[in-house]
């Protein structure tokens, strides 16, 4: 599996209490019961864990976890 995806999954499970079984590439933040502030916190966690900065505008555009992984990869994230 893609290492960035695994890292994102780890953050969602460890920091946001999401069930591991619910995390799929097609899942949206809404599917995972994460609200707009969780998205802000997710961006903060991504910055801390992966060293890339997601702007608020970019965060708002993210629909699924695979979108998120793609954006992180484009920004040069390394797991």
């Amino acid at each position, binding site marked *: 599996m893609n290492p960035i995806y695994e890292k994102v999954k780890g953050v969602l499970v460890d*920091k946001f209490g999401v069930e591991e079984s619910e995390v799929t590439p097609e899942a949206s933040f809404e599917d995972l019961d994460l*609200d*707009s*502030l969780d998205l*802000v*916190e997710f*961006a*903060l966690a991504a910055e801390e864990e992966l060293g890339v900065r997601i702007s*608020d505008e970019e*965060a708002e555009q993210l629909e699924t976890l695979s979108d998120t992984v793609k954006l992180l990869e484009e920004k040069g994230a390394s797991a």
Partner: protein
Amino acid sequence: MSAVIRGLGTAVPDRVVTNAELAATLDTTDEWVRTRTGIAERRIAEVGTATADLAVEAGAEALKAAGEQADAVVIATSTPDRSLPGVGPEVAARLGLGTVNAFDVNAACTGFVYGLAVAAGLIAGDIADRVLLVGAETMSRITDFSDRSTAVLFGDGAGAVLLSRGAEGDQGAVGPFDLGSDGDASDLLCVPAGGSRRPADPDAIAARDTFLQMDGREVYRQAVRRMVASSQKVLDRAGLTVADVDRLVGHQANARILDAVADRLGVAPERRFVNVARYGNTSAASIPLALADADLEPGEQVLLTAFGAGMTWGSTVVRWPSLPPG
């Protein structure tokens, strides 16, 4: 030598405004506000009540508790009664303190921590022996109650401490401090008009630019980052670790920010104090209102940290003293 807390007092307006009351005229719900902020209700001052009125009430209680008078008054506020003068002199006079050194400090939500540093400096510099510090705000006066993103966040109130000279290591001794600011980000949280850059002219009033405006997401992000770094710095300076912190009393703006800060610092949930549910964000008044509510035991090591407009941030530590009731 150190500045030591000798007494604590608080004042909040009687009128309680619930989320449901605000949701009646705004496109929001009680559930939305609670889950995003942790706020259930706030106090709003009646028309005609000003910041100085709350400051006098809280200040009188702190002086009574300490059983002492003050020879300096510092008011931490960003909502003074009038844009000129500051409220310090009026509060001093109304408390019967006469013609003492009295002035305001404006560091927004970080005002109380900055004020503690100023008070400690006045005492250390032999400029004053007993300083009354009051964090007092009527945030409702700069809140746009038609803006659902900010209307639910703020409340009014005041909290005061009397500090005087003591020995380092005494219970109640305040410090060391970490204070900082980032003026490049000043637009993220501001009242755009009504100051010297842009007067409160009819256009500004029509555009609601005389009210507080905030980029909530960016402020959230910076608040977490700055309060964590500042807390770590001050613990380092004090020769303490997170394991030594009995209670974390942060600026009460948003329960989720406080949890995000505490999680990153490694402060266990039972050591975090949060009372934002009762009062909302009372800016410079939030830390003393929280200290009064937290049922702190004498000897407990308390870490204070705050972040606010400016942007400003600051942290300090205090080993909680045994205080007489106000």
